[in-house]
C-alpha cells in the first residue's frame, strides 16, 4: 500500500476570537472583533484607554459573557465550557489584589489547593521559576509592587496553563520591575506558553511580542505579526503615494499653494516639468557641510535623529540630493518614495532639508520623525496615515 504525500496538519490557534461584540447598556464596547493567536506566540494587545482591551481579555478569561460572538481557547468555547477554559489559562488582571496577611508560600499553597494541584513540589518549582525563594516566608503585605506582580505570575503558573493572559502586567512598576517581568515573560516563551498581553508601553511590547492586535473604539484595526503588518502598511502607503503622484501630473495644487512642479495657476491642469536627472542632484548643496561635532569627532549614533520623508518621485533621486550634506549621517531610500534620514540638528535643519529638496525640484509629501516600528504602526492605524 502506498501512501500519498502527507499534508501538514494545520495547528489550531491557541486563541480564536470570532465576531466578538460586547454591549454595556447602549454602548458597544466591542464591535465585531476577530483574530487568532497561534500556539507559542506572544501576542501584544494594544489600544488607547477605553478601546475595549480589558473587556476582550475578561471575555477570554471567562469572567464576562460576550453579547455576541465566539472565543475559543485551545478549541474550547469560553461561553460553553468556562470551567475547562479556566484550567487551561492563567489570567493576571490589571491591578489585581492579593491576600495580604499570609506568607508568599501560604499564598501559593492556597491557590495550589484551590486549583486542585496536590503536589507540594509544584509550589517549590513555581517559587524557583519566579525567583521568590528568599521571600517565601515573608508576608505578602511586605512585598513591593513589583514582587507582588511577580507573585501573581507565580500564581497563574501553578496549574501549568498553556495560555497566559496578562492585562497590563507591567503597569505601575518601576523600570527594574518592568525589566524583570519582561525577562520572566521571555522565559515563559521558552517554555512554549502562548502569552496574550495588553500594555501601553509599546517599546516593551515590540521587544517581546511576535504578533500584535490594535484595538480602537471597540474595533480591531489590525492584527498579525509585526513585520507583516509593517510591510502591509508600507505597501498601502506606496500605493497611495503612487496614486497621489499620478494625480499631481494632471491637477495643480489647490488653494494657491506653490506649484512644486512649476505650474502657475491653482486648480488648472498643468504639465509637470521633467524630473531632474539623478547625477545633477548628487552634488551636495553648499549649505550642507561635513558631519562632525564642533570638536571634530564623528557624531555618536545615539545623538543622531531620524526622519522619515516621502517624496513624489524615485526615492533614490531624493537620497542623492541629500547624501553627504551637512548634518546628514545616512540616507536610506525605500519603496514608494519613502526615505529614511539620520541627521543631527534642530527643526530649522529639518526645514532646510525640505527646502533643499523642494528647490531641487523634488516634491515632498510627508515629513515625520521616525519611530519605533510598533509605535509607528500604532499611530498609523489608530489615527489614519501619518502624512
Amino acid at each position: 500500500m502506498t501512501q500519498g504525500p502527507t499534508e501538514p496538519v494545520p495547528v489550531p490557534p491557541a486563541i480564536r476570537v470570532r465576531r466578538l461584540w460586547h454591549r454595556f447598556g447602549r454602548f458597544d464596547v466591542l464591535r465585531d472583533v476577530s483574530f487568532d493567536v497561534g500556539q507559542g506566540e506572544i501576542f501584544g494587545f494594544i489600544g488607547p484607554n477605553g478601546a475595549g482591551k480589558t473587556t476582550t481579555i475578561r471575555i477570554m478569561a471567562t469572567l464576562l459573557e460576550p453579547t455576541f460572538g465566539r472565543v475559543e481557547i485551545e478549541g474550547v468555547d469560553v461561553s460553553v465550557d468556562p470551567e475547562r477554559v479556566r484550567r487551561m489559562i492563567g489570567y493576571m488582571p490589571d491591578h489585581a489584589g492579593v491576600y495580604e496577611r499570609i506568607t508568599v508560600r501560604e499564598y501559593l499553597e492556597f491557590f495550589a489547593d484551590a486549583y486542585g494541584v496536590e503536589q507540594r513540589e509544584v509550589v517549590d518549582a513555581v517559587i524557583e521559576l519566579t525567583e521568590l525563594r528568599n521571600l517565601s516566608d515573608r508576608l505578602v503585605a511586605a512585598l513591593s509592587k513589583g514582587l507582588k506582580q511577580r507573585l501573581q505570575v507565580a500564581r497563574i503558573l501553578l496549574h501549568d496553563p498553556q495560555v497566559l493572559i496578562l492585562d497590563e502586567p507591567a503597569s505601575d512598576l518601576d523600570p527594574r520591575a518592568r525589566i524583570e517581568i519582561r525577562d520572566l515573560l521571555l522565559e515563559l516563551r521558552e517554555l512554549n506558553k502562548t502569552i496574550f498581553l495588553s500594555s501601553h508601553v509599546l517599546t516593551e511590547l515590540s521587544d517581546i511580542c511576535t504578533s500584535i492586535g490594535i484595538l480602537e473604539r471597540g474595533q480591531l484595526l489590525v492584527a498579525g505579526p509585526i513585520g507583516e503588518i509593517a510591510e502591509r502598511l508600507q505597501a498601502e502607503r506606496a500605493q497611495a503615494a503612487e496614486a497621489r503622484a499620478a494625480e499631481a501630473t494632471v491637477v495643480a495644487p489647490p488653494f494657491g499653494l506653490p506649484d512644486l512642479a512649476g505650474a502657475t495657476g491653482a486648480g488648472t491642469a498643468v504639465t509637470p516639468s521633467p524630473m531632474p536627472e539623478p547625477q545633477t542632484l548628487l552634488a551636495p548643496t553648499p549649505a550642507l557641510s561635513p558631519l562632525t561635532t564642533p570638536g571634530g569627532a564623528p557624531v555618536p549614533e545615539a545623538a543622531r535623529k531620524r526622519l522619515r520623508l516621502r517624496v513624489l518621485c524615485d526615492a533614490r533621486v531624493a537620497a542623492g540630493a541629500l547624501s553627504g550634506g551637512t548634518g546628514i549621517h545616512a540616507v536610506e531610500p525605500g519603496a514608494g518614495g519613502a526615505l529614511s534620514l539620520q541627521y543631527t540638528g534642530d527643526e530649522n535643519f529639518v526645514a532646510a532639508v525640505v527646502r533643499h529638496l523642494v528647490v531641487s525640484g523634488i516634491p515632498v509629501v510627508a515629513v515625520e520623525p521616525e519611530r519605533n516600528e510598533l509605535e509607528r504602526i500604532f499611530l498609523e492605524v489608530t489615527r489614519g496615515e501619518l502624512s
Partner: protein
Amino acid sequence: MSTEIEVPVPPATSGSFLSRARDQLGGWWENPNPVWVRELRQSARLSRTPVVLAVLTVMVTLLISSIGGMASVSARPAKVGVALFHTFFSLAFLVVTWLGPAVAASTISSERSGRTWEALLLTGIGPSAIARGKFFAALSYLSLYVVMLAPVGALPFLFGGVTATEVAAAFLLLLLFGALSVAFGLAVSSRFWNQAAAIIVTLIVAIPLSLTGYIVLGPVLSIAVNGVWPVVPAGPPVWLPTAYVRADFGFRYFVLLVAAPAFSLLGPVWLLYELTKANLKDTSDDRSTGVRIWFVATTPLLIAMLSSVAWLSAGAEWFAASVGAFFVYLIGVAVLFAGEPLGPSRRVAVHWTREGVGRLQRFLGPGLTRANTLLAVFGLLGFALLAAAAHVWAEVASGTRAQALGVGAVSAHLAAFFVFLVGLATWLRSRSSAAGPPRLLVLAAVFVFGVGPWIAMAIAGVLAKTDSALLMLAAPSPAYAAVLYEKVAVGTLTSHAGIVPAAVISGALLVLSGLGLSLLGKLRIQRRVSEERRWVEHWETTFATEPAPGPDAPAP
C-alpha cells in the same frame, strides 16, 4: 515546566448517594476547604481580633457581674440566676445576629472590592466550595466570640434557677442563630461588589429583623407555648432552653420543640446557601437547580410541619393561620421564581446533552415554565392538604364542620389569588429581558391586591361601618380570607350574605385571569426560546466555518 507540573484529574464520583456522601465527608475531613483555611489564617493574623474579643468579654463580664451584684442584694440567688440567664442570652442573641451578618457580609464583597475575587474564581474551585468556605470561616469567627463569652454565660448556672442543660441548649441555639445570621450576611455579600455597601445593607435589614425576631420568637411565642405547656413560663425572652428541660417528652415535644425550630432555622439557612451559590455563578450557568431542589424538599416538610403544629395546637384558627403562613411562603417563592430565565442557556443545554441529563433533572433546571408549573402544583397541593388536614382534624378531634369549611374557604381563596400571581409572574417575565422588573412588579401586585382595596375602602369610609355590605369589595384581596373565615367558621357577619358569593366570583375571575396570563406567557416564552435556538444554531454553523481574518479580510 510543562513536563514538571501535572494537574491531577479528580476521580469520577459514582455509587449510591450514601457512599458518595461518605466520600464527600471524608474528602472534607482530609482536605479541608482551602478558602476556609486561608480565611482562618488571615483572621489569626488580624491584630484587632484579640483586642475586640478581650474588650467585649470584659464588658459583658462587667455588665453581668454588676446586674448580678445589684440583684443579689434583694433577690434570691435562683431568681438572680434566671435574670442573668435571660440578660446574657438576650445580649448574646443580639451580638450574634448583628455581628454574624456583618462579618459574613464583608467576606465575598471584600474579595471583589479587593480584586482578589477573579483570581479565586478562575481556580475553578466552584461556587459551592467558595460559599461553604466563606460560611464556615464567618461561623468560626463568630463562634470564637461565643466561646469567649461562654464562661460569662455559665455564671447564671452558679446562681441556680437554671440548669446546666438549659445553658448548654441556649448556647447551641445561639450557634444555630449564628449560622442563620452568617448565611444571611453571605447571601447579601454575594450580591455586592462593594464591601461597605454590603455591610450597610446587611445591617439595615438584619437589625430590624433581629429585634422583631427577638420579640416575636421570645416573649410573644412563649405565651403561645405556655398555653401548650404551662410549666414553660409565659413572657421571658429565652424560653426554648427552659422548655427543652421542663416540657413532657413525646410527639408534641418533638414536633413543637425540635422539628419546628430546626426546620425554621435550617430551612432558611439552606435557601440562603443556595442563593449565595446562585449569585456566585455566571448568568449562563445553571442557577436554578439548587433553589428548585430546596423548594421540592422543603415544601412538603413545611406542609407537614404547619399541619402538625396546627393539629397539636388544637385550634381551627391555627389551621387558618397555617394556610396564611403557607401562602406567604408561596409569595416569596413566586417572587424568587419570577426572575427565572426563560429556558436553559446554550451553556446549560450543551452540558445537558453532553452529560445525558435525565428528564427530572432537566425539569428542575432553568426554565420559567417548568419553575412555575412546579410552583403551581406544589402550591395547590399544599392548600388542598392543609384544608384536608383541617377537615380530618375537625372530624376526629374537637373541631366543628364550620371550622373545617372556614379553613377550606381560606385555602380556596388564597389558592385562587396564588394561581393569578403565578400567571402574572409568568406573563411579566415572558415580556422582560431581565430578572429584576418582574420580581418587583409581582411584589407590587401583591401589595396592590393585598392592601389596595382596604385602603380604598378606608378612604371611602366603608371600613368604619363594620356592617357594611360593601366589605365584599375587598374580595380580590388575599386579606379578605380573614373576612371569609369570620363568616364561614366563626359565624359572625351573618347579615352579609354577599361575602361568600363575592369571594367565589373574585376567586373565579382571579383563576381565569391567572390561567389566561399563564397561557399568554407560555406562548410568548415558547416563541422567544425557539427564536433564540434558531439564532444560536445559525451562528454555531457560521462560527465553526469562519476562517481566520487575513490581511485582505473586509473591515469589520
